């Protein structure tokens, strides 16, 4: 997959050209493309004077970053303690069966990506799932798939 290099350079140049901008730049790239394209990381390495290996380290260390393209809809199931004891595992299982993917994967048609997230701080309304930044509270297992597919 190739990306608009001008766009990538524009995103990187929003932050000061120094190594300490790395995480911010990666976040900006991720927001734009929903993942970190390889060529963007190489460009970031050059423009921020950070060795490519360190860019790769950071990209794989932080949970927020994905090195593979993600689907149009991102479904995240909270795995916080409160959600866990209120049945988050069952929600996840429903979604995995329903979408026929494991968590961390994307459906072959690139429509849905299923992810888990460690506590989004909406514990009072556990279990919680987030579909494209929209929070859903007190999700019942029989509603999970419908909420996910509604987008």
């Amino acid at each position, binding site marked *: 997959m190739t990306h608009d290099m001008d766009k990538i350079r524009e995103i990187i140049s929003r932050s000061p050209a120094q190594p300490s901008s790395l995480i911010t730049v990666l976040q900006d790239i991720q927001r734009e493309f929903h993942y970190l394209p*390889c060529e963007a*990381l190489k460009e970031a390495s050059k423009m921020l004077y950070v*060795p*490519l*290996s*360190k*860019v*790769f*380290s950071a990209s*794989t*260390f932080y949970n927020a970053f994905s090195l593979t393209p993600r689907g149009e809809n991102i479904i995240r199931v909270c795995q916080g303690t409160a959600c866990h004891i209120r049945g988050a595992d069952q929600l996840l299982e429903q979604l995995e069966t329903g979408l026929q993917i494991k968590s961390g994967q994307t459906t072959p048609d690139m429509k849905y990506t299923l992810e888990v997230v460690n506590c989004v701080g909406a514990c009072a309304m556990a279990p919680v799932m987030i579909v494209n930044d929209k929070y859903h509270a007190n999700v019942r297992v029989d509603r999970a798939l419908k909420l996910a597919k509604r987008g």
Partner: protein
Amino acid sequence: MIDIQLNGKMVKAEEGEMLLSIIRREGIDVPALCDHQAIEPCGSCRLCMVEISHRDWEGWKKHVTSCLYPAEDGLIVNTHTEQVLEIRRNILDLYLARCPNSKVIQKLAEEHGVYKTSFDKIPNADNCIMCYACTRICEVLGRSAISAVYRGHDKVIAPPFNEEPPDCIGCLSCAMICPTGVIPWSDENGVRTIWKKKFDLIVCEKCGKEIISRDFADYLIETRAIPEDYFKSCDDCKRIDLARKMGAIVLQAEEAKL
């Protein structure tokens, strides 16, 4: 100079000097796998852990990695308490599960009385103990061609994208410093292979012996101001060359005397 008590003996040390180097100087055997003088200490292997207390601080006792703890006056250091040994045994036990095939680990564990791991062995284990020596040495060279990627139990040392590392110059420092010798490399037919990247080797123009990777030589020429000529022949041929040149001068001088 300050005074510290090491296993009951008073020793002198420089303030701020790391405990491990004092321990080594005193000839006490404390294991350490991630420690190497060419790189900054990082405290990842945890084997050099010692017990410390202080002459003046009643009841204060800690376990610290000696490679990273700076000496201060009045410190009381014990390298072989039962608890310290227990920690070392348990860590080696974990290492045996992680790297069951490493001779280095096996030997060290046996020396500590651990002959087999209490835990389930890690599937697909290699001999990497994740001590970061390779990445740290690469950083000292200013290359940082490889790094630790992913995190937690999945952490591995790898080049970016698991492809040929663009910043690698084939110097072998990583493979050489690795305490368990896990980084594969080869020199064959004038080509060095490491991290799946191939490097041309400079071969001796006289005898054809392989000397150094072209990229590493270029690096030394550029950053260390070594004349390019120095890399043309191997050490054997350079000695013979020197002998010939000196010999010629000596002969000349002898003839002049006659």
